[in-house]
């Protein structure tokens, strides 16, 4: 088909007009619409090397939200969650949060397990004035992003310190080696705080080796560690690598126990590591065998709904969602008109009111004191971190055994 120059220009102009008209029509549709529900964003690694992190977190949040909604929602308004998958990549996490905040206009964001991913997304929430509660990012830098960023878990200094105290006092270790994931903020942070505490107690770090996420061969690092005969090896990594590290350590004849942090938490850990993990320890946020009726009720409902026992990430996600809902309820009690603006997408008119309301929501979250979560009683301190105890778990014949609690 052949168009003259004139016609083709006209055609383009016509299509442009049509396009703009459609655009305007759509934007008006969304801006004027009263959704009647409170939109919350969630981002997580539903796929990728740490997929179980994202899935557990999503399950925990889903359970909390459905419990809240079936009990009538928050002041009669249901909560809805918009989930974005970041594939376990920080750059995707940034895109996901940006979409949630700028396009979906959520009123709060829940998410990420990995500190590096939360750190990638947090600045968007901070700039837009949307509260972000990370259930399980433990790196201190996360909440340092700004006053809208919160967490319901303990932080790396505490976890690294607890690991060192446990290794020195309970295991009687005097020589420790470290194998850290050099590209991961969480792992490096834990390793540093472990080192400081362990050395301060009089212990010695005999080997400090590193790897990068995605590596499958650690024998070179472990061999050079073996020569230094450590009493304990601190491996603050994630479960996929930890399983392989344990296997290869045992294959090289290293018998020293491995000690790690909550990055070990996954159903897949035992599958990958097998018998090699027997006699190893890690810090965790909670223990599913805790006799507390609150915990047991959570464990039972989770099991009936998802068919597996909830891990710590699911429990923390559950607490984060419940804490957010409780804060929203408080907000609605003190500021009904502000609460109402959160129910619909913002318009030019109520943009300011919405912003002020979200700031109020932030203040309410910041003032949380002794919130009864399944991972223990949560209080938010001045740095927007949760103050709470850690538990130590031992792996025995593929089972998790409770060893003890470390208080902050």
């Amino acid at each position, binding site marked *: 088909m052949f168009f003259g120059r004139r016609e083709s220009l006209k055609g383009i102009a016509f299509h442009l007009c049509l396009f703009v008209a459609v655009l305007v029509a759509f934007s008006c549709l969304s801006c004027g619409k009263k959704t009647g529900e409170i939109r919350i964003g969630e981002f997580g690694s539903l*796929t*990728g*090397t740490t*997929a*179980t992190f994202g899935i557990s977190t999503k399950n925990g949040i889903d359970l909390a939200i459905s419990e809240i909604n079936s009990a009538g929602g928050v002041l009669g308004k249901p909560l809805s969650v918009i989930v974005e998958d970041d*594939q376990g990549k920080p750059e995707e996490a940034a895109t996901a949060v940006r979409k949630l905040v700028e396009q979906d206009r959520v009123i709060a964001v829940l998410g990420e397990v990995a500190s590096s991913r939360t750190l990638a997304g947090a600045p968007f929430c901070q700039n837009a004035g949307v509260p972000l509660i990370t259930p399980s990012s433990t790196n201190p830098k996360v909440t340092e992003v700004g006053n809208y960023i919160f967490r319901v878990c303990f932080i790396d200094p505490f976890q690294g310190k607890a690991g060192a105290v446990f290794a020195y006092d309970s295991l009687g270790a005097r020589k420790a080696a470290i194998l850290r994931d*050099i590209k991961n903020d969480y792992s490096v942070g834990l390793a540093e705080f472990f080192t400081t505490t362990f050395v301060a107690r009089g212990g010695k770090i005999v080997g400090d*080796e*590193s*790897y*990068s996420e*995605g*590596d*499958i*061969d650690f*024998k*070179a*690092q472990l*061999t*050079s560690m*073996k*020569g230094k005969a450590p009493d304990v090896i601190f491996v603050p990594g994630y479960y*996929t690598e930890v*399983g*392989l590290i344990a*296997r*290869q350590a045992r*294959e*090289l*004849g290293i018998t020293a126990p491995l000690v790690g942090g909550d990055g070990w938490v996954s159903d*897949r850990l035992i*599958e*990958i590591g*097998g018998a090699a993990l027997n006699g190893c320890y890690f810090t965790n946020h909670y223990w599913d065998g805790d006799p507390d009726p609150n915990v047991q009720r959570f464990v039972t409902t989770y099991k009936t709904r998802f068919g597996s026992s909830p891990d710590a990430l699911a429990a923390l996600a559950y607490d984060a969602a419940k804490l957010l809902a409780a804060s929203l309820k408080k907000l609605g009690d003190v500021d009904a008109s502000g609460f109402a603006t959160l129910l619909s997408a913002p318009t030019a008119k109520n943009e300011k009111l919405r912003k002020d309301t979200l700031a109020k929501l932030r203040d309410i979250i910041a003032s949380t004191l002794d919130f009864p979560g399944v991972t223990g009683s949560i209080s938010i301190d001045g740095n927007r971190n949760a103050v709470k105890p850690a538990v130590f778990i031992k792996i025995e014949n593929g089972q998790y055994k409770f060893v003890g609690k470390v208080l902050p």
Partner: protein
Amino acid sequence: MQEFLQQLVNGITWGSIYALIALGYTMVYGILRLINFAHGDVYMVGAFVAFFAARLVGAPGPVSPVAAVLVLLTAMAACALLGMGIERGAYKPLRKSPRLTALITAIGVSLLLENLGIIVFGPDPKFFPQIVAPRQMELIHGVLVGRHQIIILGVSLLLMTLLQLVVLKTKIGKAMRAVSFNRQAASLMGISTDNVITFTFAIGSALAAAAGVLVGLSNPKIDPLMGIMPGIKAFVAAVLGGIGNIPGAMVGGLLMGIAEVMVVGYVSSTFRDAIAFALLIVILLVKPTGLFGTGMAEKV
């Protein structure tokens, strides 16, 4: 000393994996002057085929040696077919096109396999079943060798010997050498060059699949992107040994594995990937034809 020997054992094990993959690169390059960038992904497919085949014969948990060999052979056969398919479907139509076209197509095939892998197998890592139970033995005082390591070394040596026999002693091997020497002349002598090329892809892909299975066995975590890094490093190994040269690829692979393990063991793990490319730069500066390569005149 003991530590050094242990590192050497680790390095040789990895090196034989690189050597197996490098052979495929070097054979295809020798015959087609094409760097088959999809080769690393064939290695990944090999690991996944074995993953599913192992389930059929009763994994997880150790299976009989016969079943384990069967798993290996299934993966090799499947990847041989895949390699032939890639050659016939993607490269053969471009035989008369400029070399750059085929090279870019190779990158395209690589991306296709990776992303198909993500769709079909899922992006999260899979645990490769332990079809042979791990066990350690002491080589000399304090130096441990695992059963998996012995299997890796044994299978690689066996396959490399077989390959040398095929290339040097059989009729098809003779045809391969002829095509590699001069494709046009070979076709004038009545050699069906297309069949020889397809055969080369089949062998190379089967070797890559074997490498995939061996890696899965000893480092039981496989995912659809696992082929990228080993693929690139094996390519460097092939260049190191002299691309187009079969013994060169074996030696290049071994050197690469040992260099990598030594760097991680004695310097820092952050140089693990850097060492491969440092080696590539050095070899290209000092001896661009590689250790065993002969400076042959560029044929058009």
